[in-house]
Every structure is written in C-alpha cells, then in structure tokens.
C-alpha cells in the first residue's frame, strides 16, 4: 500500500485542502490512539488538534522514503499524548475550593475504549501486549514489566500477535474476494 505522494507534496507546500483530506483519512485512527492514552475526551480533542497542527507545521520533516505517513503521524500523536500525561491537565474547582479531576467522563468512555476488529480474535496475552505498546503508549520495557514477563518473551508476543493479525486480514481479504467473485 503506497501513500499518495501527490497529496504529501501538496501538504508540504502548505495546501490546507491536502491537510483536510489527510484529516478525514486518519483523524479517527489517531483519535483512537490519543483517547486510549489520556482517557479524557476533552483533553484528547485538544491533543488531536495539536497533533494535526504539528503535522501541518512539520510536514517538511516527513520523508516518504523512511516510512508511511500514518506511521509518522502516529508517532507525533503518541508523543503529544504522552507528554500531556506528564503535565497536570485542567482541574475542576468546586465550591469548597478544593480540586479534583473530573472522572465522570472516564466511566462513560470505557465502552468506547474497548478494542475492536481482528485484535479481538487474538489470544488475550497477544491482545494485551499490542494494546500496551500501541494504544497505551508504553515502551517495550514498561510493557513487559506491566505484563510481568521477560522482555524477550514480550517481544515474541508482539511478533506473534502481528503475525496472527496478518493472517486474519488475509482471511478477510480472501472472503471479500470470494464475495466479489460471486457477485460478478
């Protein structure tokens, strides 16, 4: 799958329509990542906008030879979300002047944050491994401690999980192909 190089060139020439197309294509995927890291809708929306502003401003630093634009955009989104976690976000003040974090949104978001798609077909430890590094922004080191397995084992979890995912995708593609064949 190749990215549209013309679209990227237009983005790098600061064509706002190109940014609009890229936003339509990737904002959902990036928002899914950001929201799963910061678990706060209001903050995640700010961070999503911050992410696309950075994509716009730093578009000349993106080199298509080094990888897909989504990979580059994902790294930006993840960094912005992780950095935001390190600084205290808006606290809500109540009448007795004490402050607490607004946790109501967390409850309602739990359903939304459930992982979907082919990932669900994987074994739980494979799911967990991918979730930690990809959607929670943990490093391999942090994640293997979190799962309480050796780093080498954790790395093989990731590898196996990706392999299974690929097989699942190919199965879907095959089914799709069969359906299309039948329709013709």
């Amino acid at each position: 799958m190749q990215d549209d190089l013309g679209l990227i060139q237009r983005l790098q020439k600061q064509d706002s329509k190109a940014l609009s197309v890229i936003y339509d294509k990737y904002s959902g995927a990036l928002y899914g990542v950001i929201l799963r890291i910061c678990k706060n809708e209001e903050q995640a929306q700010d961070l999503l906008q911050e992410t696309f502003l950075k994509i716009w401003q730093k578009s000349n630093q993106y080199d298509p030879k080094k990888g897909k634009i989504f990979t580059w955009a994902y790294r930006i989104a993840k960094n912005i979300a992780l950095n935001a976690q390190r600084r205290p976000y808006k606290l809500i003040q109540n009448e007795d002047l004490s402050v607490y974090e607004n946790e109501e949104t967390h409850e309602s978001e739990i359903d939304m944050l459930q992982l979907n798609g082919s990932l669900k077909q994987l074994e739980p430890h494979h799911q967990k491994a991918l979730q930690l590094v990809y959607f929670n922004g943990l490093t391999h080191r942090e994640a293997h401690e979190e799962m309480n397995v050796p780093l080498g084992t954790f790395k093989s979890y990731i590898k196996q999980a990706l392999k299974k995912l690929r097989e699942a995708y190919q199965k879907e593609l095959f089914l799709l192909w069969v359906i299309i064949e039948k329709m013709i």
Partner: protein
Amino acid sequence: MDRNSIKDTGILEQYLLGELSDSQRIEVENILKEDLELRNYFNKIEDDFEKLAMENAITPPSGIKDSLLNSIENSITKEEKVIPISKKSNRQFYLAIASGFALLFMLTSGWLFNQWQNSKNTVEIVQNEATDLRNQIQTLENSFNETNSWYQAINNPNTVQLVLRGNQISPNSNAITYVNHTEKTVILNPKGLTKLDDDKTYQMWADVDGEMIDMGIIPSNKEMIAMKYIDNAESINITIEPAGGNDHPTVEQLISNVLL
C-alpha cells in the same frame, strides 16, 4: 546486525513505535535504506499497525476539523497580510531616516563648502596683502640701502663736492659730483641737467694730460650714479653726445667742466 537478527530482536517494531534513541534510529534507517527485503518486511509491519489503528478508530467530534482548518487559515492570512505590511513600513521608516540624514549631510556640506570658499578668498586677500607689504618693505629697504650708501659716500670726510654749472649751450644745467680720491670713487647727481631729446645723451669725461678719458654715460632718470674714477684726472667734463655714447668727446658740445 544481520537481517534475521534484526527481525528477531523486534527492533523494527520499536522503531515504528518511536521507542529508539536517536543513534539507534539512524542506524535502523540506514539499514532499511540498503536492505530491500527488510524494507518490505518493515512495510508489512507498518500496514499491520495501520490496520490495527483503523479498526480501533474513534470518530472525533466534527467541530475539531473546523477549528483546526480555521486556525491554519488564520495563520496563513496572518503571514500573508501582516508581514508584508510590517516589512513595507519598516522599509519606509528606514528610507525616511536615510533621506533625513542625506538632507542633513547635503545642507551641512553646502554650508561647509560656502565657509571654505569664504576662507579661501580671505586667505588669498591676506596673502596678496602680505606679498605687497613684503615688496614694499623690499623696495623701502633697497631704497634705504641705496640712499644710505650715497649718504655714506657723500658724508665721507675725504669726499670733495664739486658743482658743475652749465655754460651758454645749456645755461640752466647743473650737476653735483662727489669725488673721493682715497677710495677712488666718483658719484654724480645729474638731476639738475636739462632734459635732452631721445637721440642724445650726456657723457662724462676726465682730462688726463690733455687727453679726454671716458667716465661713462649719464642716465637721465637717476638721482645719483657712480661714475668711473680716473687716476690723475685734472678736470671733469660733461658733453652732449649721440644716444649710446661716443668714443671721443664732441668738444663743441661741452656744456660744463670743473677743475679738480
């Protein structure tokens, strides 16, 4: 690192997730640039992760896109509108300062040029005056020296004053000679001699044993003149001769003589 160990270490996954240090990242990028098979393998991982993200996408509220595009449009129009104006006004500001300085320099240099010309004229006038004064002093000095030398000569105790009176040929003429036999000088004051035509001149002669010896032509425009001193002269004579003088005196034109 060979190809398989790179696949096994999971470093490509970490690279994709942005977990590597700068030096590791550059190393991986260089390896990917050169190894096509690894590059394809990495592309597959990218695709897997992208699909994973797409399957778990959450649609953000539509307002975010509008606000994003608005803030970008604002920054574009700001860049387009504000910067050129400020550049222009800056340039105008500097131009105004520069032209102010230019005008100031022009005026001051005009004034200085004028002053310089005035000074030059004044110096020229002063120099001319000084030259005139120096010339006057020179003239006065010369005149004084001359007068002084005549005075010294005349006032010398050994000097004898002799008056030469005109005869019937030139009855109104007279001249005064000062003869000093010690220093052997003869000085003549020819002022009293009647004016002659341009083709004639007075000439002075000394009589030595009956022979007339030339003592010199008498210029008409001098007050005092030194003549030749002739030894053993018995008398001094003045004749009228053709302009330029004569070898022998024209005795018929003798106008005055005096015995020594």
